[in-house]
């Protein structure tokens, strides 16, 4: 409105100015024409005044309405004594779309464990296998396992991003490990997804499952032996979801090759490659399943494994093939009351290259096949309570005479382990667990008991099937 009057004023000024100008330049102006101009000016003025008045009136009524509204909105006289409200109502349309308002969703997982071992875990080894990566047994006694921070959110309409940082304690010292830091595309055509960054490889079933989602407190033996517990690395992943009525997905990955079973960033930092296919579907309302086949080819350059202080060095290729199968049952698909999960994987590995044994002066050639498997069942018979049984095993070929008596000599032993688990979940955010392992992986068998709590705070995470 202010703008309006200003224009109005300018216009009047302009007319007045031009009149003056005319008066000066044309000193002889007929009285008549001057009167005409005055009359015209008057009309313009009165027209604008009318419009200003109209606008002023509108303003006044608007102000009145506003005042009336605020009166009607004011708290009703003497409200009835109600208990402190813990909830409120919304008006339609006042909706924000996510549980974060531009902050990334933050989830915190607190995992604590207590383990008791029959034999000293430090001295334990499994004949025929030199474990690498983070596949050692959990610390004996009280410990906080692995606390995780997960930050995630959509970057924009094209990308989703996620960072998982784990606070770990190793040899009494705390460190922050970057477990995952990746971006993933959301809108590529033809159902293609591209993932860039650091992440757990999509091979197998258990490999990309975070520790807090495991059904047992510790990782299955074949993953500990061949994947360094879980193979995560810096890389690129391409996935394609086939346009079929059932689930069918293919994926390929290239990684830097910095962590077990790769190592030393071989091939100028393109150390490992993988291919995988996953499929799955439903059978009626109560059953659903998934199965997959995967291959991981990892190149290692002086990869360390076995004893941390006196490691074995391997240079060569590690080829791992995985077949996985998971079957879930819940009456009518309502897993909240009762459910059963059957899960099994088979891993086969060939390592071909040369090995520098601890204390040896020269490396020796190695071409060794090994395999591992686990089968487990988890049963929730009533809300909150679950019990599970797992059997896992390993088997390694004899790598030859040169290795007799070394860590790679299986000594005719087939490592086995039997685990029983019982857990209780007060809500979907907390879980308490007790687990017993009969560990026959070493030459001496061992009884192990673990207690675990897993708590999740913050953003409500969603878990993969």
């Amino acid at each position, binding site marked *: 409105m202010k703008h309006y009057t200003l224009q109005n004023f300018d216009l009047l000024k302009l007319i007045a100015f031009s009149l003056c100008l005319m008066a000066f330049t044309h000193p002889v102006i007929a009285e008549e024409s001057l009167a005409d101009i005055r009359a015209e000016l008057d009309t313009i003025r009165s027209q604008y005044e009318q419009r200003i008045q109209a606008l002023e009136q509108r303003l006044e009524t608007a102000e009145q309405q506003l005042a009336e509204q605020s009166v009607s909105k004011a708290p009703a006289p003497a409200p009835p004594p109600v208990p402190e409200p813990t909830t409120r109502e919304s008006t339609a349309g006042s909706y924000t779309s996510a549980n974060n308002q531009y902050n990334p969703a933050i989830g915190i997982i607190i995992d604590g464990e207590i383990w008791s071992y029959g034999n000293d875990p430090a001295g334990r080894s499994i004949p025929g296998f030199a474990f690498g990566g983070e596949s050692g047994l959990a610390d004996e006694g009280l410990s906080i396992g692995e606390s995780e921070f997960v930050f995630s959110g959509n970057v924009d*309409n094209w990308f989703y991003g996620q960072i998982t940082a784990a606070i770990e304690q190793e040899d009494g010292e705390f460190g922050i490990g970057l477990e995952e830091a990746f971006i993933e595309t959301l809108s590529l055509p033809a*159902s*293609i997804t591209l993932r860039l960054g650091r992440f757990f490889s999509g091979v197998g079933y258990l490999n990309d499952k975070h520790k807090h989602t495991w059904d047992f407190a510790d990782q299955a033996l074949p993953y500990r032996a061949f994947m360094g517990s879980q193979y995560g690395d810096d890389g690129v992943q391409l996935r394609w979801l086939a346009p079929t009525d059932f689930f069918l997905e293919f994926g390929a990955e290239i990684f830097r090759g910095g962590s077990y079973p790769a190592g030393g960033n071989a091939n100028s930092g393109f150390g490992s490659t993988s291919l995988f296919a996953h499929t799955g579907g439903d059978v009626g309302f109560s059953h659903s*399943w998934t199965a997959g086949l995967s291959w991981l080819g990892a190149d290692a350059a002086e990869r360390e494994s076995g004893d941390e202080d006196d490691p074995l060095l391997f240079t060569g290729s590690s080829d791992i093939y995985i077949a996985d199968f998971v079957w*879930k049952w819940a009456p009518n698909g*309502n897993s909240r009351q009762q459910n059963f999960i059957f899960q099994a994987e088979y891993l086969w590995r060939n390592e071909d290259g040369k090995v520098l044994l601890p204390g040896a002066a020269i490396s020796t050639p190695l071409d060794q096949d090994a395999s591992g498997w686990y089968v487990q069942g988890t049963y929730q018979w009533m809300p909150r309570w679950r019990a599970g049984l797992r059997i896992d095993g390993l088997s390694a070929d004899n790598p030859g005479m040169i290795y007799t008596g070394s860590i790679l000599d299986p000594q005719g032993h087939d490592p086995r382990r039997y685990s029983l688990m019982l857990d209780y979940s007060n809500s*979907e955010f907390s879980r308490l667990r007790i687990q017993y392992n009969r560990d026959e992986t070493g030459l001496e068998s061992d009884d192990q008991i673990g207690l675990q709590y897993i708590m999740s705070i913050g953003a409500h995470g969603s*878990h993969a099937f």
Partner: protein
Amino acid sequence: MKNLLKLLILLTAVFSSLVQAKLNVFACEPEWAALAEVIGGDLVKTTSATNALQDPHYIQARPSLIAKIRKADLLVCSGSELEIGWLPLLLRKGNNPKIQTGKPGNLMASQFVRRLDIPTVLDRAQGDMHSQGNPHIQTNPHNIAIVASVVAERLQQIDPGNADSYQQNLAEFLQQWNQAITGWEQRAANLRGQEIVVHHKSWVYLEDWLGLVEVATLESKPGIPPSGAHLSQLLAQMKTKPAKLIIRSPYQDAKASAWLSEKTGIPATLLPFTVGGSDNANDLFKLFDETIHLLVIHLDTAE
């Protein structure tokens, strides 16, 4: 030349069959699947991620759902974090640009209605709270009417060629629906002020609509299964001040309400909650017919 002509005819046939292909609607809950079928008619093919016997908060991101969401043209869900445990994952894994947040193909029904139970303090010690409010909006038929208009609007946006059909279906539905609401409200007139016990806070919109008064929940906190301690506390409460009815939805365990009913003599009943929730409730109209019928026979002493 003849072959070329044949090829052209074939291509045209293929193309026109593609054009005539139905829109795929992926509903998270059965009530939205039923609504999309009413508004979309023969032009849409609808699937529901959950059935009436499944708790939509607790299903898993199953592989079959990833395959289905991949093909969806329209996603219709309750929203307000009801599906937070699986839908975000499906949206990422399904990799379907048409239904990502912010696209016309992404419809979160609770966004469009007046939501109740919005926590003023968010603390999981109070149970699994939904920061956007209670997501079970379908228990008030007025909400269904609002969402029907939004579904029609979105279908028109996605498939402008058939806009008139959607508009016509909506008009027909709303006319019948509003008439039905008047009938339900007349039948339920005497329910106002009646006190009920619920298993989970699934019924706040029904209570708000009919003026029912919820005096207790079988769950001590939302999402925490009924415990013995809490139930005996409820028993004491019901002995001094009995409610009229205990209600639960089809996916909730009958044990807790049966126990309380047996101890107190207060009748317990299952309300269908969604389409397919009982043998009779096989469409949206019958869902409310059945709900009102069950409430009236248990609560309306005048009948």
